[in-house]
């Protein structure tokens, strides 16, 4: 680093987050250009309204999923079952609340079921040593069937105001899903970053075998990561169910696992494991939702979303890959060879 630019003078944490912050700013700017009232926020009936509030509100389920997914991806794993777990958790909460149980019981039971699903995934990955993509595929296939077993094949609707408030209520004017997302994010950062747990997870992601030799109980740490991912999926599932006042086993959380993975990747967590940044995954989820909202506001078909997402994945893959470094390497080697040949040429001339 010969020249000290403005970028290098920034604090390290902020410098690392720069690409995501620029991307978020660009997407928000585009939204603002499409829809000038984008940043307008008004207070009505004690709750904030506005497009930007909506982005955070609608982005909440993916943001919550991306928290757990970040941990799992950091261990060099993947959890494909989160969408199905969302459906199961929603089904459990809706069925219990209709069975006459209170809101706390329904929510706690749904969370417990989510953790149970995560433990199952963790068991397969950590103890039986099955590759994560395959292990979680089982629950992804069977999970929606289990959810339909619970709802008996119907969409279970409910009217319990306490449960509906999970999605439609607000705290100090802030929509409840946003509050829950921020609380989950804070708890997760506290739990994994202020203890050694986060470090263990990163160590496993880099090399599981040497982590075991270094004394990390890899089985337990892996299981915790998957269980936490199951918990976040359950939270997202309860919000999704409360949002539509019903549990739809077929469509709740459908394809959200892909959005969650995308959010984590946009957030700069490598798919090859070894490092994770929870806050940036959250920003990644918000970027995705801001793009969705922008496409809707601009009057394009919502289906256009998929193509934009594909383009985003491809661009990130090229950026994350070693293609630029490879080209640079090849160029350097070519230069060296040129130099050597020149040298040989001059030596030959001297002899």
């Amino acid at each position, binding site marked *: 680093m010969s020249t000290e630019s403005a970028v290098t003078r920034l604090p390290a944490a902020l410098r690392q987050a720069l690409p995501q912050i620029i991307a978020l700013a660009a997407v928000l700017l585009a939204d603002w250009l499409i829809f000038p009232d984008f940043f307008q926020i008004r207070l009505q009936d004690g709750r904030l309204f506005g497009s930007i509030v909506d982005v955070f509100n609608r982005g909440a389920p993916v943001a919550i999923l991306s928290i757990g997914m970040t941990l799992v991806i950091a261990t060099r794993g*993947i959890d494909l079952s989160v969408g199905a777990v969302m459906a199961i958790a929603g089904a459990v909460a809706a069925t219990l609340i209709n069975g006459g149980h209170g809101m706390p019981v329904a929510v706690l039971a749904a969370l417990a079921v989510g953790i149970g699903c995560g433990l199952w995934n963790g068991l397969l990955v950590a103890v*039986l*040593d*099955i*590759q994560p*993509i*395959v*292990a979680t*595929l*089982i*629950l*992804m*296939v*069977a*999970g*929606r*069937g*289990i959810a*339909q*077993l619970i709802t008996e*094949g119907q969409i279970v609707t409910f009217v319990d105001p306490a449960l509906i408030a999970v999605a439609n209520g607000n705290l100090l004017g802030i929509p409840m899903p946003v509050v829950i997302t921020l609380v989950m994010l804070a708890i997760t950062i506290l739990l994994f970053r202020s203890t050694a747990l986060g470090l263990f997870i990163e160590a496993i992601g880099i090399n*599981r*075998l040497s982590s075991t*030799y270094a004394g990390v109980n890899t089985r337990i740490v892996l299981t915790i990561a998957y269980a936490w991912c199951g918990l976040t999926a359950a939270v997202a599932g309860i919000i999704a169910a409360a949002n539509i006042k019903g549990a739809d*086993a077929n469509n709740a959380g459908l394809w959200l696992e*892909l959005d969650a*993975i995308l959010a984590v*990747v946009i957030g700069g967590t490598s*798919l*090859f494991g070894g490092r994770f940044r929870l806050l940036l995954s959250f920003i990644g989820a918000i970027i995705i939702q801001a793009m969705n909202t922008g496409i809707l506001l601009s009057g394009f*078909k919502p*289906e*256009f*979303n*998929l*193509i934009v*997402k*594909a383009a985003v*994945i*491809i661009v990130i*893959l*090229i950026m*994350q*890959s*070693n*293609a630029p470094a490879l080209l640079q390497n090849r160029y350097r080697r070519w230069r060296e060879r040129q130099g050597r040949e020149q040298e040989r040429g001059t030596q030959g001339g001297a002899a």
Partner: protein
Amino acid sequence: MRKRFLPLLVTILVFILAYAICTLQFPKILSWRVVGNLMTDNAFLGVVAVGMTFVIISGGIDLSVGAVIAFTGVFLAVTIQHGLPPELAFILVIGIAAIFGAAMGAMIHYLRTPPFIVTLAGMFLARGSCFLMTTNSVPVDHPLYVRLNEIFVQLPQGGRLSLVGIIMLVTVVAGSLLLHQTRFGTNVFALGGNRAAAAMMGVPIARTTILIYVLSATLSALAGIVYSLYTSSGYSLAAVGVELDTIAAVVIGGTLLTGGQGFVLGTFIGVLIQGLIQTYITFDGTLSSWWTKIVVGLLLFAFIAFHRLLVVLSARRLQAAPSPQRRGQPAETRSAASQPAKTSTEVRST
């Protein structure tokens, strides 16, 4: 040698056992009519699963197949509606799919990215292109479709093996020959067994990787054509979740998800097992269709656990008869080391 066929044998046994149980309960299930319907109803799944077998044996995964099937269906419906002859549309769509597969294979190889994320992008792209063409269900009423759907082979007891069923059977046989009898097939096994070792042995890694994904995408397009014939329409939300059914069929069929071992015939039986479960549910009449998902999930778990057990057992055997290099290695490297050993027998026997 015999151990290599163990997963395939178990799959065949499970199928025969399941069929026997179904027959005990509903004797009519063992009839040519049901067999003919089993072939017709699962034809598209059978075709696409052959391609997936190659991908999984090579150690990859292809999540885009369902989207490519839907894309093919919509593309055919829209272009035929605009007056393109179906034959030309078939050729065009297979060409597009081949380019699509080549692009995915090239990204996987040259950018060194995990196949699942590349094919995930492919899935978004293919689905998105469907939606851009139309979001409606477009019927196809071209005379050629009517004529093709009337082709069938008469089976005993009034059963019919339709054209789409024949296409599936031909694909399975051709795929089996390609996998087990050609150099390309051997390269696929080598790639899945151990990539680095395969490269050192002189296997053309780049070409093989790209060809595998071209094959998978092309067969997905063929499955899309079959699906289009079967439903006589194109719909952009068709074949959602088919990628999972396909992967499940391949795994139930005895292909190792870690790559390096598998059979096209097994995949075919895996497809039939799934079809049988659905047929059973139809015969029963009181069970809901979501039981299919739970049973397939259970089967998936049972087979994966079984494969895992085989790997662990073979690692134990290596430990029991240690060679000087292997003795000092830790447990996890040992199970990994058993993989290339298996591949070398694979290479020799094919």
